[in-house]
Structure formats: C-alpha cells, structure tokens
C-alpha cells in the first residue's frame, strides 16, 4: 500500500507558507516605497506614530477576526468606541469631585470603559444568538443607536475630559516603556494573545469550526451560541480597551468619533486573509492588514501627490493591489 500513498499529489497538503506571505509581501513593498519616498520614513518617530495610531483599529480588528471567523459581523464597533469614550469621559468628570485627580480616577474610567464595552458586546451578542437576528442587521441597528446616544450625551457637540485629568492620563498614549509607546505595547500584547487564542486554544478552534459548519460544531458538543456570544463580548471588551488608549490621545468624544472604524477593521481582517464567510481566521494576517491600511495613509502624507482629492483613489488602488498580490502569489504557488 506504500505505492498508493506515493500517488497522492503533493498539493493535497496545504502550503500555508506562500499564501500566508501574501499580505506580508504587500506590507514589505509599502515599507520599501515609504523609505524610498522620504528619508524620515524609517525614523523612530515616524514608525512610532504609525504603529501607535494603528493600535485602536488594530485591537478592534483582532476582536473582529474572531467574530468574522465564527461567521458573524459587527458594524457597530466605530460607534461603540465613540459611545464608550463618551460615557467614560462623563464618568471620569463626574467622579472627579469625589475622587480627585489621581490614578484611581483613571483606573475607574478604565473600568467604566471595559464595563460599557462588555455590555455593548453582550447586547450585540444576545440579539444575534438569542433573538436569532442577522448580525448585519443587529449591528447596523446598534451602530445607529450608539452613535445617536453619544451625540445626545454630547448635546450635539463634544464631550471633553477635564483638563487636569487629561494631563495625568496623556502618558497612556504618549509615553511608553524602553522607547516603545504604550499603545504599541498593548496592541502587540493583544495581537499575540489573539494569535495564541486563535491557534492554540479551544476558543479559536471552536470559532473556526462554527464558521465552517455550525451544525458539525453543535454535533460535537461545542456550545455554538455560547462561543458566538463570547466573540461579540470579546470584541466589545477590545473596543473598550481601544477606547482606553484612544481617550488620552484626543481627550474628547463626539458624534464623529470612530467614524468608519468598522469598515477599516473589517477591511483589515479581510486583507489579512480571513474569510468573510467564516471558517478560517488569521490574527496575524489581520495585524498585517491593519498596518497596510495605516501605512497607506502615512505614505500619502510623505510625498506631494497629484491632488489631495485623489488620495482616496490611490488608497483604493493600493488596497486592491495588495490583495491581488496576495492572491496572485497564492495561485502561482
């Protein structure tokens, strides 16, 4: 029977290496382009900027990877971030008289952010799993709800963190450890944890199984609804965490905070190679996707391009090209 084994074509074994390298390749090309366009591109300052600002979408996109992998979708994350930021700031301002400016107040704000994120994720998750409504509709609805609520809380304007509190809180975005900014560190930790969760824990395995075929998962004693709910809750928590890093950066929230983050996060996930239909998730691909999106913006600022009106077009072309490259590599493999 040895001969039979030999007859199996090599291609029945997956070649993850090359197809996985696709987005990475696009990333490398972008970095090369940036370095070519501007000497300061590879400076510590610029790299820090690019990575730190990717952190918000990045953390959210890592959570989104789990939601999409298990066959879901969340359009509400951008508005959710705005809402969390609004509530968090209001809470800190409200607690200020009693708690005074200090680390406990900041910590209290963080707890509020995570709690609101958890509650928001839970709301999405319950509507999807218990009420059985399409994730698209649920999160389209909550997207409008969260955004409206923050506009209402802000009375149409902006909710601002007390100035003194803000001074204390700023370093959470602007400083770091060993020259690495905090948002970068937190994002890296989230990404690593996400990658491990996806590849090396039951949770990740179940997400893939559910996205691939939820009936099979159910037959295998996987708590399909529980895991689905957990992905939305996890995403809510990560939106909360992203907000914790975001608020010290801008110190305020308004109806336009986090606008279109959902689109960026989903795009990063898909560019990274996760299937929109679920069943296969790649956290580190998502990280690469986030970096690609963030680099495109950065590179557009490095050189004087034709017309600022055309930025969107160039961005669009690069996104499609990045993915062509990736798929091209895969099929030629």
């Amino acid at each position, binding site marked *: 029977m040895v001969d039979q084994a030999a007859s199996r074509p090599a291609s029945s074994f997956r070649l993850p290496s090359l197809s996985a390298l696709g987005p990475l390749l696009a990333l490398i090309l972008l970095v090369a382009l940036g370095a070519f366009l501007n000497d*300061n591109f590879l400076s510590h300052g610029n790299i820090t*900027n690019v990575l730190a600002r990717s952190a918000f979408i990045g953390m959210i996109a890592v959570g989104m990877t789990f939601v999409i992998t298990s066959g879901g979708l969340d359009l509400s994350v951008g508005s959710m971030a705005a809402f969390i930021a609004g509530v968090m700031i209001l809470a800190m301002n409200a607690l200020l008289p009693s708690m005074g400016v200090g680390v406990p107040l900041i910590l209290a704000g963080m707890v509020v952010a995570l709690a609101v994120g958890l509650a928001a994720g839970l709301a999405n998750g319950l509507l999807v799993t218990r009420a059985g409504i399409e994730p698209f509709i649920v999160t389209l609805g909550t997207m409008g709800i969260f955004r409206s609520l923050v506009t209402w809380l802000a009375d149409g304007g*902006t909710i601002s963190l007390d100035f003194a509190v803000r001074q204390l809180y700023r370093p959470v975005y602007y400083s770091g450890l060993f020259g690495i900014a905090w948002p970068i560190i937190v994002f890296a930790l989230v990404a690593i944890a996400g990658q491990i969760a996806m590849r090396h824990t039951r949770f990740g395995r179940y997400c893939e199984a559910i996205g691939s075929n939820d009936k099979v998962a159910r037959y295998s004693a996987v708590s399909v609804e529980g895991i689905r709910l957990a992905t939305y809750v996890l995403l809510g928590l990560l939106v909360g965490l992203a907000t914790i890093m975001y608020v010290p950066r801008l110190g305020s929230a308004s109806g336009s905070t986090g606008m279109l983050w959902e689109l960026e996060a989903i795009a990063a996930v898909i560019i990274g190679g996760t299937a929109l239909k679920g069943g296969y998730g790649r956290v580190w691909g998502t990280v690469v996707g986030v970096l690609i999106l963030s680099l495109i913006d950065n590179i557009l600022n490095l050189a*004087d391009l034709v017309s*600022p009106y055309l*930025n969107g077009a160039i961005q669009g072309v690069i996104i499609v090209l990045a993915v062509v490259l990736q798929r091209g590599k895969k099929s030629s493999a």
Partner: protein
Amino acid sequence: QGKKAVIGVSIPSATHGFMGGLNWHAQETIKRLKATYPNLDFVLATAGAVGKQVNDIEDMMATRNIDALVVLPFESEPLTSPVKAVKDAGKWVTVVDRGLSQAGIEDLYVAGDNTAFGRVAGEYFKANLKPGAKIVVLRGIPTTLDNERVDAFRKAIDGSGIEILDMQHGNWNRDKAFSVMQDYLSKHKKIDAVWAADDDMAIGVLEAISQAGRQKEMWIVGGAGMKEIIKRVMDKDPQIPVDVTYPPALISTALEITALRFVSDTPVYGRFIIGSTLVTPANAAQFYFPNSPF
C-alpha cells in the same frame, strides 16, 4: 537665503460645499504663494475624520520638517493637544475657523464668527417677521459650531414672538435638506420663513418648496456665501432676500498672513475675525466670485 521654509496645511476634506470651497481656496492660494515666494514650500493634507487629521499633523512633524502649521481643526477639543504639541516643538501655529479649546496656543487665529453667523440671521428674521410668524430650521452636522450658531439665532429672535415649528439636522447636505424640507412641508400647513443655515442646504430647501408650489408663501435664509445664492440675492429673488457670509476664503487670509511671517518682518501675531455680514441686494456684488467652485 538657503533653506526653504515649509508650511504645513491641515484642513478637513471636501465633504460638502463649504469645505469644497475652502479646499479650492487653499490650493489656489498655495499655488499663488509658491509662485510669489520661491523660498516657501507648502505641504497640504486633507482629512475626512478627526483621527486622520491628527495623524496628518503628526506625519508633517515627523517626516516633512515643517516650520509652521496652518490648521482648520476638524473638531476643536481633540485637535487641541496635537496642535499644542506642534507649538511646543517651537513651530509657528495658525488656527483657522474652529478655535482650539485652550487659549494661547496659536500664534495667529483667523476665523469666521459663528455666533455672529447665527445672530445676524436671527436679527434679520426678527426684523422681517411679525410676532406669531412660523419658521422652520435646518441645522448642520451635530457639532459645537452648529450649536453656537443655533444658540445665537435663538437668542436673537428671543422675544420676537416668532415660533420655531421644527428643527432637524440637514447635515449641510443638499439631499438631506431636500427630504427634511419635503417633510416639513407635509407637516406644516403654514410656514413663513426657513433658516437653512447653509447655502448647500438652502439649494435643497428651494427645490422642495418649488415642488410643493409654495414659493410665494415663505422666504429662506441660508449662509456661507455660495456663488449661486449670492447671485440670486443680487438678482433680488424674493425667495432668497439675503444671505449671511461665512467665507471659505478665510483660509486664504490665514495662509497669506502666515506666509508674511516667513518672508518679511511684519508682525503678524493676533486674531483676525472675519465677521459674518448680511448680504443684501445692495452689497451682494462685493461677495460674488463666479470662478470659485463654491
């Protein structure tokens, strides 16, 4: 003279008429200033969202070696500390239109006057409507500046006996304003005047009114000074008796003054508030720029 001075310009992108005009003026002015002053260079970035604008400013600092920043904040609060960081790095800062939330950061402030914008309109309503008159209002995108305008408007008509029937957001957008006005017209049998608070919205409102055939019943006041609207004021259109200025060209003023700082010794610190004036058939010609896209 050796090294060129680099002026970074960060403005919101052309998402609606007024901003389109502002973008156009910015580019035209940059072109002109570059030609006039060979030792000046400009870096222009446009942003569709707050976060993107902060990124743009960071990028200018990190990679473009700017000497000055001209910024029209997408929103005041969140831009305050990023702009302050530029200032702290020893750069020149000019703030345009929407002020920062903390005083004393900028070297130069060039702005329209949102309070005047609302007040001037309100005063016109008060002067031209009888007590008991009914009006509807279309607001912009929910923002602080929209609030300032609406508050000033309300204050100005206070005590006039004018009744505001309805106030919805038209988002400074023609299509949205058109639907909102259509619905106002279905809902209210009698409307004496409309404050559309932006000329783009006024265009949508006019269409909805003419569709309903109620042109004779009410007049409209927009704002900002779009050329089509100014033209109608000039032509004594009874539907558009006046307009209130809020010129997108204020970005040109800001750029020009900032440029002066680098090419001459003129002291240019300070605040330049470009007041909102009432455009009437009498003075309309003065505000009419047929070549501007706005």
